[in-house]
């Protein structure tokens, strides 16, 4: 099948269907409501389940219920909605259920605005709700990558029995780009009989399964948290993803940027190259696990004088970049939190100001 021109939100929705996820619960919120609108038409065609819940709070638990009984399921929302879902996300993580969440981030705090933003970085990568947990977080830089990450998200969620979060922004959601849906990313749901509450008859068993997050015994709770921790360490070993751009040159500055913002940086890097200035970039594709080792190694390249964390917020990823660089180079933040995305020219001027 050739490429088709699709809006990011609709492509994300279609990618879920192609990935074999036929269950979707959601509550409308700008700038991602097209996902729900698309699936309200599409899922009935394929015998799937579409339900508009009464709130993001309820939707979070519809996802929990559906996931806990062993079915592939996902939802999509935008920042304020993800805050409301965060309670459920904590429970889902605690109960070790696989589920996929899409957050098409908008500016904040509070109602903020609806333009592209990366203001939910901390919420995405540091857990977000109560308790000690992480999500596997992937951040696409365009519609095609959003499709691919969406299709990868379901088997990854099942591999870890942990929620996967796709972190986009209004530009990724609203933009149309040519996309294709890679056949090799189609996957079959794994067998969940050993843990899911899918009915004893379904798995031909006499022993009930229990999906829960309550561990009143202190040792059991600590062991449970150690088990979760081991998962996050395994994510780092096995499912870390990043792109190194122009990183085999003797660059003078290293940019760390993801998603929409990284596209602007890429254009700036190309333009600077034509002016004889080399700039490298590490683009985290997974925000958790975070490519800290790659950033460290790229930062300490002898030619590199400065590291720039460029993001659509007030400097959140900056803290992880600093942690990766470990003081070996100065690290500076540049960004905007209002939705006015810095232009390639802004980035070029910024880089030059440090050289």
């Amino acid at each position, binding site marked *: 099948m050739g490429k088709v021109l699709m809006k990011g939100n609709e492509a994300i929705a279609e990618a879920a269907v192609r990935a074999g996820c036929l269950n979707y619960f959601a509550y409308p919120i700008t*700038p991602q409501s097209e996902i729900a609108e698309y699936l309200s038409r599409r899922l009935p065609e394929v015998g799937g389940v579409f339900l508009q819940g009464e709130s993001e709070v309820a939707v979070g638990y519809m996802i929990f219920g559906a996931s806990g009984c062993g079915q592939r399921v996902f939802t999509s929302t935008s920042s304020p909605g993800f805050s409301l879902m965060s309670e459920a996300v904590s429970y889902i993580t605690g109960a070790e259920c696989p589920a996929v969440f899409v957050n098409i981030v908008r500016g904040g705090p509070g109602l903020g605005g609806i333009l592209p933003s990366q203001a939910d970085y901390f919420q995405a990568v540091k857990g977000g709700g109560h308790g000690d947990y992480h999500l596997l977080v992937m951040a696409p830089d365009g519609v095609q990558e959003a499709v691919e990450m969406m299709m990868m998200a379901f088997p990854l969620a099942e591999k870890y029995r942990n929620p996967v979060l796709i972190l986009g922004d209004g530009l990724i959601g*609203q*933009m*149309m*780009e*040519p996309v294709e849906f890679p056949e090799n990313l189609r996957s079959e749901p794994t067998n969940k009989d050993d843990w899911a509450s899918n009915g004893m008859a379904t798995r031909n068993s006499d022993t009930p399964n229990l999906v829960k997050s309550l561990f009143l015994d202190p040792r059991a709770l600590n062991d449970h948290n150690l088990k979760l921790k081991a998962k996050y360490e395994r994510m780092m070993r096995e499912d870390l993803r990043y792109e190194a751009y122009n990183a085999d040159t003797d660059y003078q500055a290293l940019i760390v940027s993801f998603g929409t913002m990284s596209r602007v940086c890429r*254009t700036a890097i190309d333009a600077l190259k034509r002016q004889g200035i080399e700039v490298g970039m590490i683009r985290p594709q997974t925000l958790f696990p975070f490519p800290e080792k790659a950033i460290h190694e790229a930062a300490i390249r002898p030619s590199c004088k400065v590291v720039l964390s460029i993001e659509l917020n007030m400097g959140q990823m900056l803290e992880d970049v600093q942690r990766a660089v470990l003081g070996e180079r100065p690290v500076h933040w540049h960004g905007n939190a209002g939705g006015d995305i810095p232009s390639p020219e802004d980035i070029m001027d910024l880089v030059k100001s440090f050289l």
Partner: protein
Amino acid sequence: MQREVMFAGFGGQGILLSGKILAEAAMAEGLEVAWIPSYGPEMRGGTAYCLVAISDQPIGSPIVRTPSHLVAMNRPSLVKFAPTIKPGGVIVINSSIIDIGSNRSDVDELRVPVTDIAKELGNVRAANIVALSAFVARSRIVGLETFKNTVDVEFAKKPDLRSINLAAVEAGISAALKDR
């Protein structure tokens, strides 16, 4: 090389569709494209606009403050975007309802009464296609044959609108060429 076209007008003037058709046509020519709409509360009845980026390379930043070209369907759009257009760009002005010019001497300004032309053809809603066709004919940003074919495919799903929009294509093209 990357070029960007800004389409702007009232909500309901078919702005987003114009952009989509252009993006489809560029895709059909093997070019890279990105289509970026305005979205949110401003789309309810107010000004609508979308930006189409077209390039022979993968598109890096789709965010541009100075687009290459403009198709302005109403006066507020022209006032807002005309000063931002790169020198040498094409600015199509819907002269049926815009009585001012771009006030630029370094662009190729094309005034076409697209609303009146569409009315004469029998459906005012085809005005966007008249404007888009005039723009394509003037800028040659994509080939005319590819473009015509794309419009045909777009309206193949809506047979009642197909002939009028194909007529709108011809009217737009001849208006652009006549003006020159």
